């Protein structure tokens, strides 16, 4: 995956960090101090669809073939800039009974982006 730079137009990963202190959540979330959310943004021209980030596979090959066959009628090719690698967010927080809860929320941190 590609990280966004100033003026990026192609599909890339934009870093975005949410500081829990900034949003006033530091009193109930014990750890971590923030959430590295990140997100995917940018264009996905047809020739980029299926790469990068999505490993070559039978499914990718079939999708690319379908796109190539239907490209003439759809300008965008219905290809999206989407997360291809995500990680869990570990949280340690107080619930409303003042119990301490530790959990791992899957697929919360975007690590890489690619065109679907």
């Amino acid at each position, binding site marked *: 995956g590609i990280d*966004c730079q100033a*003026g*990026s*137009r192609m*599909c*890339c990963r*934009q870093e*975005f960090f*949410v500081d829990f202190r*900034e*949003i006033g*959540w530091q*009193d*109930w979330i*014990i750890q971590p101090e923030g*959430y590295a*959310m990140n*997100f*995917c*943004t*940018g*264009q*996905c021209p047809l020739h980029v669809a299926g790469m990068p980030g999505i490993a070559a596979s039978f499914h990718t090959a079939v999708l690319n073939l379908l796109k190539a066959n239907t490209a003439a009628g*759809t300008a*965008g090719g*219905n*290809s*999206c*800039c*989407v997360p291809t690698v995500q990680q*869990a*967010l570990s*949280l*340690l*927080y*107080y*619930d*409303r*009974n*003042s*119990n*301490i*809860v*530790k*959990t*791992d*929320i*899957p697929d*919360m941190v975007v690590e890489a982006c690619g065109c679907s």
Partner: protein
Amino acid sequence: TLRPSSQCATCGWPAVDLESHRELLLNLAKRSILDKLHLSQRPTLSRPVSRAALRTALQHLRGPPQGDLLEDNRRQEYEIISFAETGFSNINQTRLDFHFSSDETAGGMEIQQASFMFFVQLPPNSTWDINVRVFAPSPHNTNLTVASQHALQVDASGWHQLILGPEAQAACSHGHLTLELVPESHVAQSSVIMNDAAYRPFVTARVRVGGKHRVRRR
């Protein structure tokens, strides 16, 4: 969202200007975390826990075995520490109440493991016998009855752990666990420390969400 015969939201747009979208993104992040925790709004802390109790409890909380997260279709797991509130007590018994937020999780909670942690202060070279009773609501009414009990012999000062059985796990799943400590011997008065913030008894539970009513489609 990809709609038929249209482009998805991110397509055809250059990278967004972060500053102009900052509020939107912050709200999105907040909503995303609350949704995944099955909370409609951020909790308001009604019974703050002292830092000493927090430190002690966290030192005793063991992380889940590596790999658990990715197994079983990545079902989200929680570990919960619930601190005791002292209920009706006298010199012969001490009752402890533990509250769990069963209503916060869609589909109910499935308690996989629960442990009771308590601190005992004993004179040197002495032992202490204690019965730990687990209470559960009676099938016929709301009165609490003894569902199981565990006889323990403690021979040293310090933290002690009791792995709780299915009756206690069921009580935790329903949001409320009551334990009663009944000393069998009186070598030491008030051997279990209740009121010192750093030694407050607690229950740790490993929880899986929505386990009981989950329907799996293949």
